């Protein structure tokens, strides 16, 4: 790890002053679980880390009739154990529990989960988000078993690594991004982007901005939500495919549906055709199967990752069955 200087400011205003428009100059430190690995591997070598942990407001969980407000430093452990979240936002609690290492849940934060860098082995090997070796794209001739199956027409082929983003997007959450002068609320659906050139980043947070909180509107009556992740092992691992489902039911019929896939595209992937198919229907296994199939329509596997199409299809089906109480949800 390259040497750097370290600051631990008391306030957001102080923290913002310590940042710069240059990503190599200063980076924000939250839980550190991803950041320190990136620095040890020399993927990045910032000259300064700005620790946010002494900024009180970033640790807060607030809830009322309008919704839930999560400070960026709220840990995944808090998400998975907070009684209000378990009751009103169960999909969020499940998603946090899907990070199946207590150590990572205790350290990892809401903001860090959203801002962690892709796990793509080319990126981690120093070839950048677009996996370029002296201008040549490595992915087309490479081993792509963990790469995107949707939204993968280039030049980016990595998958979004966030555990929380699919369910947050399904819940219509927004991310507050604070800059030196103003703050803005960015819908999770617009928070991530697919880079089109080697100089672009995978989310909209500029180097001199800080993610300060996530705002989740209170689900209306009849809300049902769940996630389903497929991993190689039950213990700590990033999913190969994941799905988040948020539906409203009137009687047993679906009135609104949100279906978002994770780990299959450079951004969380909303499956709108599948959502439309679901509206007006009563969910049973046949419907869930058909909706799962619709969710991966248009998938275009690369070398060695066609298996992910099946995993994503099943993830949607099972998330939908979980959300509607037809498949058990594992407990902590």
């Amino acid at each position, binding site marked *: 790890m390259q040497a750097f200087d370290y600051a631990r400011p008391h306030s957001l205003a102080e923290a913002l002053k310590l940042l710069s428009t240059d990503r190599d100059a200063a980076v924000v430190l939250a839980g550190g679980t991803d950041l320190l690995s990136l620095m040890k591997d020399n993927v990045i070598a910032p000259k*300064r*880390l700005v620790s946010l942990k002494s900024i009180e407001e970033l640790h807060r969980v607030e809830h009322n009739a309008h919704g839930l407000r999560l400070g960026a430093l709220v840990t995944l452990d808090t998400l998975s154990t907070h009684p209000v979240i378990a009751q009103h936002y169960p999909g969020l609690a499940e998603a946090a529990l899907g990070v*199946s290492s*207590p150590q990572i849940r205790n350290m990892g934060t809401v903001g860090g989960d959203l801002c962690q860098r892709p796990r793509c082995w080319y990126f981690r090997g120093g070839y950048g988000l677009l996996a370029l070796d002296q201008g040549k794209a490595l992915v087309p001739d490479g081993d792509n078993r963990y790469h995107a199956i949707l939204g993968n027409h280039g030049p980016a082929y990595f998958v979004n690594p966030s555990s929380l983003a699919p369910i947050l997007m399904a819940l219509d959450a927004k991310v507050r991004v604070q800059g030196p002068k103003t703050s803005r609320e960015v819908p999770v659906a617009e928070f991530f982007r697919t880079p089109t050139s080697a100089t672009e980043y995978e989310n909209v947070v500029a180097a001199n901005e800080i993610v300060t909180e996530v705002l989740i509107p209170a689900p209306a009556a009849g809300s049902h939500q769940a996630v389903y992740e497929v991993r190689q092992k039950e213990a700590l691992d990033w999913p190969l495919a994941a799905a988040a489902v948020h539906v409203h039911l009137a009687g047993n019929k679906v009135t609104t549906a949100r279906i978002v896939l994770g780990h299959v595209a450079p951004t969380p992937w909303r499956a709108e055709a599948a959502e439309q198919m679901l509206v007006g229907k009563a969910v049973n296994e046949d419907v869930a199967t058909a909706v799962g199939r619709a969710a991966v329509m248009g998938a275009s596997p690369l070398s060695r990752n066609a298996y992910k199409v099946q995993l994503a299809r099943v993830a949607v089906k099972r998330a939908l069955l979980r959300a509607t109480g037809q498949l058990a949800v594992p407990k902590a």
Partner: protein
Amino acid sequence: MAKNKNGSGFSRRKFLKGVGVGTGALSAGLLSPAETLSHAGGALAFGTPQGPGAVPITLHINGQAHRLSVEPRVTLLDALRMDLEITGAKRVCDRGTCGACSMLLDGKVIYGCSMLAIDAQGHEITTVEGLSHNGRPHPLMTAFVAHDGQQCGFCTPGFIVASKAFLDRTPHPTREQVNHGLGGNLCRCGTYHGIREAVLDVGNPTGKAKTGGQAHGAL
């Protein structure tokens, strides 16, 4: 490991450190009293950047305050092992995956390799060394031995610490809860069966949870 049987105070560890090229010259013992005192009790938060050279910090480990001087880039794990010679927590993957460096931060299990020492100030840190009292092993340690929960033993301190944090929150676990609750630690020897039995034994001393694969413990 650190104590020689003949009591000379010479250890394999110190010897290896001594011959290392470029070993950091500053360690806890070399700080002048003035240097440590001038920073003692200082506010944890500061808007002025520190480093990149060595910075005086204070860590609270196993009930004791330790003053040392480390560069901001030094991880909590490395500060403990290299500067303070508290070597129970092991460095294996150094990437927050294997769990060998597990330690408690304010009672919660974390990976020491994934936190900066300078960022760990103001927290109470407990390593496997801090779980024994008056030379008596923690019940988990005894149970690990009784159930053959280790082979090479390198993952064991991390597993003991992770198991302690797990049982603090889930005092009477089921087998499934143990599997999930220790999901952040790896054993390459594959001693999971013994580890699982040891944790179930400590959590369910009457032996109820051991009799079957299904949930027995009170939730």
